[in-house]
């Protein structure tokens, strides 16, 4: 099995790492690069726990081949916080939008992409944007409320 170098930008920083033939982006990020934010839920496109942004657009890293991100920009939940946590993360805490937390990195990335494209989404648009992300714990309402808190300026204004 051949090892191939992949150079890309991860959360704003230039990265280079080796991937094996056929490795998916989720495995590459976690084992190859050490970014543990994206999670393995189902491995078949059904849960969204592995959601990352590729050039700003939400993708499922479990179904993306690592080699396809050559030269591209990858953002994960690890990059959301700067010196302090981001407004979205703060809102998730305030609203208890994470219980076990397994879906949270994927939810945060789906919500980040939504707010970047549409800073003032309504409730239906929020639901649509996270409908590819499954949460077993919260019943979704706290997550929707947290995203709307940011959209409507109640957090991080």
């Amino acid at each position, binding site marked *: *099995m*051949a090892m191939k170098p992949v150079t890309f930008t991860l959360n704003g920083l230039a990265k280079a790492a080796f991937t*094996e*033939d*056929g490795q*998916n982006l989720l495995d590459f990020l976690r084992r190859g690069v050490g970014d543990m934010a994206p999670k393995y839920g189902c*491995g*078949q*496109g059904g849960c*969204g726990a592995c*959601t990352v942004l590729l050039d700003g*657009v*939400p*993708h*499922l890293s479990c*179904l*993306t*081949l690592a*080699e*396809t991100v050559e030269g591209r920009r990858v953002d994960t939940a690890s990059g959301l916080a700067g010196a302090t946590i981001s407004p979205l993360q703060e809102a998730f805490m305030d609203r208890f939008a994470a219980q076990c937390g397994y879906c949270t990195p994927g939810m945060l990335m*789906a919500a980040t992409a939504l707010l970047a494209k549409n800073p003032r989404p309504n409730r239906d648009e929020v639901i*649509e*944007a996270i*409908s*590819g*992300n499954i949460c077993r714990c919260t019943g979704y309402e706290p997550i929707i409320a947290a995203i709307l808190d940011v959209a409507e300026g109640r957090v991080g204004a």
Partner: protein
Amino acid sequence: MNPFTYRRATTAPEAAAAAALPGHRLLGGGTNLVDLMRKGVEHPETLIDVTGFSQQIELTPGGGLLIGGAVRNSALAAHPQVRRDYPLLSRAVLTGASAQIRNMATVAGNVMQRTRCTYFADPAASRCNKRVPGSGCDAQGGFTRYHAILGGSSACIATHPSDMCVALAALDATLHLLGPDGPRALPLSEFHRLPGDTPHLETELRPGEIITGVELPPPLPAMRSAYRKVRDRASYAFALVSVGACITVENGHFAEIRLAFGGIAHRPWRATRAEAALRSGPATPEAVEAALKLEFAEARPLDGNAFKLPLARRSAAALLAQLIGETA
């Protein structure tokens, strides 16, 4: 997952040449192929990434649209001209999968996606004539909620799962193909095959051929169109039944009608019998009822999916009533 190599094709002819080589498969967004490789259903040795070309949506000289095979499903649904002139296509795509998957999935990959039959996707424990021709079909007598009521055979009752293709069928779309003998075009409605006793042969794509694009004819003046999908939950689920229709009505009569169903057959089901019965006739609920009865005369529902027959007829009747109402 078996090891494989990955490379990018930069032109359609290069991809078509590579597609002809043994063990080679084309890779679009990977949302279906990578999943099936992980499940041990598909075992390509080399993947040819075809997302680097055929990415445009262009106006054709005749006033239609030519959609490149590598256009992402999300880009297709959001395209201003698609939303304005072919709203049912935009709607059908948006009812499918999730935002993440639509961002990844390509138009050609959507057309070529394989059935979601759970027995097909389970090599460890299930028999499937698609996976292993002649091995048997465990769906017969099994869980058939997502299986076919029309056009099935004793060898296979799988359905084609695409929402997009149902809209394309109702729009009379044409596929553009490129192969060793050059380019050719084929109506989408004739591209997917019925299973018969060769369910492993799913489309008319020849060895070494690739899909380069999908062409939509110009929108008819005063055309009304819509897409309706019935599923087990409001989002992120495949269709139990879906229906797409385009109509034009003049003086209370159907001047044109095109009707297609999803979730009920091995291919996007163009309702040619119902269309023929209705074309030029009165646009009334009674005529629609009679035509739908004709269309489903040969339906063979199973224990687990008998509900689909009334559901498909009622969904189509309701959709057509809505469209007729809009033309009044």
